[in-house]
């Protein structure tokens, strides 16, 4: 694994973040956020390494609140008060916050797992657009998703994981449902095999 030319495979999580890596896990509550902690504290959770939130070991509360405000504004996070507990947000709004908090760190690489799972349509649209904008701005965005429509919409290239092995990436324009189906079923895309499977 190489980030911006630097080998990162053996580095710690915090060191990778310092190099510009960001990650949105599948599980919002308990993994992506500490459910009973405030949003500002959850901003600190991933921002403590390299986002100006910590000075000489002390927390800059203004900076963490600032992140919450910016995420709220930019990604339309609906909440009851300025800095509520993470658990009190709805799934879609919490996901917008989580994705937003990572994007606001200007990552070089963003890995997102199931970005819109269990999220309402409006929030899902916001999130997908945010990912697209980030990619356009030059970051590398890796999305893991079970939603083929979503991937077709936002991805430039698609690869399929089968039994722990990743296929070669296909350009989205060439990734037809049939081809994806074959890969998901485990066959390779040798022309003869593919033609046979598709019934040609």
């Amino acid at each position: 694994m190489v980030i911006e030319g630097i080998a990162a495979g053996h580095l710690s999580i915090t060191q990778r973040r310092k190099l510009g890596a960001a990650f949105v896990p599948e599980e919002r509550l308990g993994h992506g956020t500490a459910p009973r902690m405030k949003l500002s504290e959850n901003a600190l959770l991933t921002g403590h390494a390299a986002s100006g939130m910590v000075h000489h070991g002390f927390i800059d509360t203004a900076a963490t609140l600032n992140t919450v405000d910016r995420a709220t504004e930019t990604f339309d996070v609906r909440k009851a008060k300025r800095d509520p507990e993470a658990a009190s947000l709805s799934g879609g709004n919490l996901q917008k916050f989580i994705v937003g908090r990572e994007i606001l760190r200007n990552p070089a690489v963003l890995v997102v797992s199931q970005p819109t799972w269990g999220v309402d349509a409006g929030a899902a649209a916001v999130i997908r657009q945010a990912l697209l904008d980030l990619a356009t701005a030059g970051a590398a965005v890796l999305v893991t998703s079970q939603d083929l429509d979503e991937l077709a919409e936002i991805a430039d290239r698609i690869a399929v994981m089968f039994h722990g092995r990743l296929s070669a990436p296909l350009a989205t324009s060439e990734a037809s449902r049939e081809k994806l189906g074959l890969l998901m079923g485990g066959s390779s895309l040798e022309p003869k095999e593919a033609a046979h499977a598709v019934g040609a």
Partner: protein
Amino acid sequence: MQLVLEKRAERSGTIALVSPLIAIGLTILTMVILFAILGKNPLLALHAYFIAPLTDGYSLQEIAVKATPLVMIAIGLSLCYLANAWNIGAEGQFLIGAVAGSWIAVRTQGTDAGAWVLPAMLVLAAAAGALYALIPAICKVKFGASEILTSLMLVYVADLFLDYLVRGPWRDPHGFNFPTTAEFDPVATVPLLIEGGRLHLGSIIALLVVAAAAILLARTIKGFEIRVVGAAPRAARFGGFNANQLVILTFAVSGALAGLAGIIEVAGPVGHLQPGISPGYGFTAIIVAFLGRLNPLGILIAGLFLALTFIGGEQAQIAMKIPLDVTKVFQGILLFYVLACDSLILYRFKLVFPNRQVTRGAG
């Protein structure tokens, strides 16, 4: 029809404020019943326990003196518990600190040692307590052994070690065969704050510890790490925090504070090392930590309150022949009520009817 518990969407701020008061109220109610069963006048007993000690300057000092080790140890424990590291061996760390610091006192006894003695005792005691606490911490981190059990077993080991020392090598030769060291030299004694009184420097140290902990937990990234690692371990790992390192750190700090409390107790109010130097401070501090809700200010208040009950218990025994065990019962019951009321901060009750109708219950 059933009463069920369900999780609240958000912590209840009102209950968080009111819960300790409700708990204290319920405890006092229970104690009134207990006093009645014991055949003692409840009002007089309550007065002896809670009011009488506050009316006398001397007993106010005693409360502060008694609260000092409780608060110091409990602060250290709160750091561990916040990080989900269960240090039950504070009593042992207290004793080992007392032993280590006393070693300097005993070695320099009778010689014309300088003012370096006391600071050296304090530092050595803290270091010894920290090292002793690292044993269960390392056993947990490296081997996965339960820190609850290992730290607890070490309490007995420390107690026996102390017993051996004061009955054997360190026994005062002029002490009429009592199992105790000779009185510490003045240079090895914790200075008093008030001439002729009981208040000593240890109380100031305890207050500084409270302040330091408050700053650590609320304002520093390390404090944040400690809190997250206990509250949401997977999120902590996601945030890049190292749970093992935090277990080691909190145990070491907790052991240091317990050890420091130990030598201060020995070199302060008591003046020499003897068996039974601790009337279970290490375990009572666990109650103080929970009563204080693992919060530095709360611990300070809880420590003072519990010290009040100790002094009150002694006075009640003298004045009304109420057994000292009642104090333990009171503390146990108080902790139960506090824990129960605190549960309502995170959960609420609901009445559930079989035909699926739902009514709000208490909360």
